[in-house]
C-alpha cells in the first residue's frame, strides 16, 4: 500500500481517525496520504477524521485541494472531516491565494477538533433516537 517511512501518522481513536502531517509533503506523497487515509476510513469504519496540519508552515494550492478532496471522499464514505492546527501565517497566505474555503470544518487544534466531532455525534444521536 505504501512505501518508505511514514510522513503522516494515522491513529485510530474510537470511531475517529487522527492523521498528523509531520512535515511538508510533495505532490506524490500527498496523493499517497490521500489513498492511505480514505482506505483506512473504510477499514476502521470511521465516522470522523481529523487532519492535523499544525506542523506545516506552508500549504500550497495542491495541498489544500487534496485536503478538500479527502474531506469530500470521506464524506462519501460516511465520515466527517475536521482540519485542525492551521497556523496564522498559513491561514493568511491561503486567503490571499483565494483558498479561503476548505470545504471542511476547521478547528483550532486537535482538542477542538475532537470536541466538534463529539458534538456532531451527539446531534446525530438526538436526531435518530
Amino acid at each position, binding site marked *: 500500500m505504501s512505501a518508505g517511512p511514514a510522513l503522516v501518522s494515522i491513529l485510530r481513536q474510537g470511531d475517529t481517525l487522527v492523521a498528523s502531517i509531520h512535515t511538508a509533503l510533495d505532490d506524490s506523497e500527498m496523493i499517497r496520504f490521500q489513498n492511505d487515509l480514505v482506505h483506512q476510513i473504510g477499514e476502521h469504519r470511521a465516522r470522523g477524521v481529523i487532519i492535523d496540519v499544525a506542523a506545516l508552515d506552508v500549504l500550497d494550492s495542491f495541498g489544500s485541494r487534496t485536503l478538500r478532496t479527502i474531506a469530500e471522499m470521506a464524506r462519501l464514505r460516511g465520515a466527517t472531516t475536521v482540519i485542525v492546527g492551521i497556523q*496564522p*501565517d498559513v491561514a*493568511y497566505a*491561503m*486567503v490571499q491565494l483565494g483558498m479561503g474555503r476548505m470545504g471542511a470544518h476547521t478547528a*483550532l487544534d486537535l482538542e477542538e477538533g475532537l470536541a466538534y466531532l463529539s458534538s456532531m455525534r451527539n446531534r446525530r444521536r438526538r436526531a435518530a433516537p
Partner: protein
Amino acid sequence: MNEQKTEDGQDTVVALDGHQLLPQLVAHLREHRDPLRDEWASRIREAHLLEAMTPQEMAAETTSVYDNYVEVLETGSVEALQHYARDLSERIIPRGVETHEVVGIVLLLRDVLARSLFEKYQRDFPLLNRVLDAYEPAANRIANTVAVSFVEERERVITQQQDAIRELSTPVLPVRERLLILPIIGVLDSERARQLTEQLLRGIRTHRAKVVVIDITGAPDVDETVANHLVQTVDASRLMGASVIITGLSPTIAQTLVTIGVDLSKMNTIGDLQGGLEEAERLLGYRVTRTEADDAS
C-alpha cells in the same frame, strides 16, 4: 585690491575682499539690531504670519531668530541654526504653524536685512554689489536650512503619529473566555487590513477564541476593497476554527455594499455590537441572567 583713492577712508572698505566684507556686514547688523528686528516684526504682522503666537512670544522668537541669523552669517556654520530651527519647529508645530509661515518669516528677515544693507551702501554701487554677493548665498543657505529643518520635524511628527494610530487602532480584546472583540476605527487600507488580520489570527491562537466580533462602527466608509479585506479576514479566522460576527454596519454602508454587489451572504452580520455580543454568547453557550437587584430602595 585696487589702489584707487577716494575721499574719507572709503579706500579701506574698497580694499576688502569677500572674506572681510562679512564681518563688517555682521557688525552693521549687530549695531542696528533693535530697529531692524522691530521692522522685521512689523513686516511679519503686516503679512499676517505667526498669528498663533502671542506678542511676547513673537518678540522672544524674533530676537532669537535674528541673533541666530546674524551668527550664522558670521560663522558660516549652519549646524547651530539647524539645531535651533528644529527646536523652534518642535515648539511651534503643535500650535498649528504652517510651512509657508516659517519660510515666509525667514524670507522677510532676509529682505529686511538686504534692504538695510542697500541703504547703507547705496552710494557706492560696486561695493554694494560685493556686499550683496557675500550676503545672498549665506542668507539663502539659512532660508534653506530653516525650511528643511521645519519640514523634517513635521515629517517626523507625522510618522510618529501614524505609528501611534497604527498601534492604537487594532486592539484585539478578549471579552469572555474564547470570545474576542476587534473594533475597527479609522480608514482600513490594504496595509492596515493585513496587519489587523495578522493580529487577529495571532489573538485567536493565543486566546483559543471560538468566536470573534468585528465591529466596524468606527470605519468611516466601506468600499469594495475594504469589504474584500473583511471577507479575507473572516475566511482566515474560519481556517483557524473561529467564527466571525460582523457588527456595526450602518444603513449607508449596507446600501453601498448592496449597490456595488459585494457578496457578504456567507458572513454573519448583526446590526450593533450589543446584538453581536448576544449572538456570540449564544454560540458559546453562555446564558446571561440578571441577578436580583439588592439596592435598598
